[in-house]
């Protein structure tokens, strides 16, 4: 008799404990979320997400750098020789295998657009340097080829190709 009575009592207490703990946990979670979230990019940062670039003045073999989302973007007008080199590379020689045609827009082989941030630790690689005549990162020695693909050094992946489109024959919109 008394055992049943005790059991009833603990059930009631258990219920209240569980409900209180749940409400408490939800409350803590709801309070922590804004504190964590405030550190993510704010609305004004997100609003500056796309830019337009005029390419008409870029000559063959020339490379320009524009600032997009606080990062440099390399726009390179590649020479025929450089395009050929990039296209003929054996995929087996690549650390992050990707064909050149997947890194440029169709019919626009001469324009290579990549984010100028080394995929290792974020330095800005130097154009026309390195063992593969693409880019060389001075920080930790990563070599990229004329398609911006990683060939040698500690970087794990190719230079990122940002989302972009040709709005006219010699104008692109990045972002």
């Amino acid at each position, binding site marked *: 008799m008394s055992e049943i009575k005790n059991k009833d009592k603990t059930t009631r207490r258990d219920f209240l404990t569980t409900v209180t703990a749940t409400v408490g946990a939800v409350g803590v979670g709801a309070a922590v979320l804004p504190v*964590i979230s405030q*550190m*993510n*990019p*704010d609305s004004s*940062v997100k609003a500056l997400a796309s830019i337009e670039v005029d390419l008409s003045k870029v000559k063959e073999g020339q490379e320009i*750098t524009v*600032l997009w*989302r*606080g*990062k*440099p973007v390399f726009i390179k007008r590649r020479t025929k020789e450089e395009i050929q080199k990039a296209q003929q590379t054996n995929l087996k020689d690549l650390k992050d295998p990707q064909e050149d045609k997947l890194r440029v827009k169709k019919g626009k082989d001469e324009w290579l657009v990549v984010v100028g*941030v080394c995929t*290792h*630790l*974020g*330095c*800005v*690689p*130097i154009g026309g340097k390195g063992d593969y005549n693409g880019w060389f*990162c*001075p*920080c*930790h*020695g990563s070599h990229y080829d004329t398609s911006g693909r990683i060939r040698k*050094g*500690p*970087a*794990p992946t190719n230079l990122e190709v940002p989302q972009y489109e040709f709005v006219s024959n010699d104008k692109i919109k990045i972002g």
Partner: protein
Amino acid sequence: MNDQTSKTSKEHFEPVHTNKVGGSPFTGVTGWIDNRLPIIRMFRHEYLDFQVPKSLSYFWSFGGILTICLVLLIVTGISLGMHYKPDANQAFDSVEKIMRDVNFGWLIRYAHMNLASFFFIAVYLHIFRGLYYGSYKEPRELMWLLGIVIFFLMMATAFLGYTLPWGQMSYWGATVITNLFSAVPLVGDFIVTWLWGDYAVGDAALNRFYVLHWLIAFLIVGVVVFHVIALHIVGSNNPSGIEPKDTRDTVSFSPFTTSKDLLAMLVFLLIFVAVMMYAPNYLGHPDNYIPANPMVTPAHIVPEWYFLPFYAILRSIPDKLMGVIAMVSSIAVLGLLPWLDFSKVRSSVFRPIWKQCIFLFVLDFFVLMYIGGAPAEGIYLVIARIGTAFCFAFFFILAPLVSIIEKPLPMPTSIHEFEEWKKQGKIKTIKLFNK
């Protein structure tokens, strides 16, 4: 339950003392305060009457030296904070304003900058002392672990502080170090964007780095308090590695240790002031006097000198994630040492093989420091890899192996006997200053 207790004839109630006022050995105003807030008693007990081994060498002064450095860093830091502006457009100029316009601003900034370096010099000597004399061994493991926590926090706050002047090295150092988090599988990029509050290091990052630089500085103070409380429970180790047994082995903390520590602090601060006054930028990098430019990475990017050994380990490994893991674990592994080295003998004075291993480890530290500042190619890369391999071999192979195969030298049975042996020239110890 209630039925049972009421059945027992005599009821017994334990007395309760929620009011603990009293017990002070002092009288008057001192006693009045001490009865209510027993810090005066505690101070006398822990700093005046406190017994320490009489064999302590100047290597035991670095704890005190580090405390002074921390206090001076906070005082100069608060002073700088009154003039610095954590804004990407104003930070660099506000630092130059401190250097040119603020009264004694140049002195306060140079002091803060160089104190950071000297804090690391002292902490490396402090860690060496712990390694050489086996201060990490039972029962001081927790104190050792707290020390490693302090070291990690120090590295974090030093890094954050270095980003604040917003020069080229600040900016690119911040970029490289925050990018270390991008090595985390799956969520790495989200973590980095979250840390930056942007898609690159910029104004949002600088503002929060300033706040975190302050926060971590005071976290260090908190962990230091734990470190010292633990020290006062387990007691100081000493060059013999033998625990004190009776009054022949110890002296009072004051005036013996205090006067010795004060002399050591004086010498240390003299060297610090000499460097600060005659070569204030010697330990820094000239590129940090170029304002931050997100479009150009300096051709030769190096961290501050005290991070170079770890930077060399990071660069020695050709895989991004593994490089980051190796760098972090090269420090964290210190925390396993109390269990990896299970020799019963603490002090390397009596450990002929382990002593050689420690000197090799110190050599490795300096080699990696040199390599960390050299370009990451050719022969430097080969040496960096050998150095990294040795660093881990020291902990995971040498420490347990030497614990097993080494035959310790004959040992004295007490600290006062150790002192006699020293006088008789039977044992050699490291001396920082000749007596």
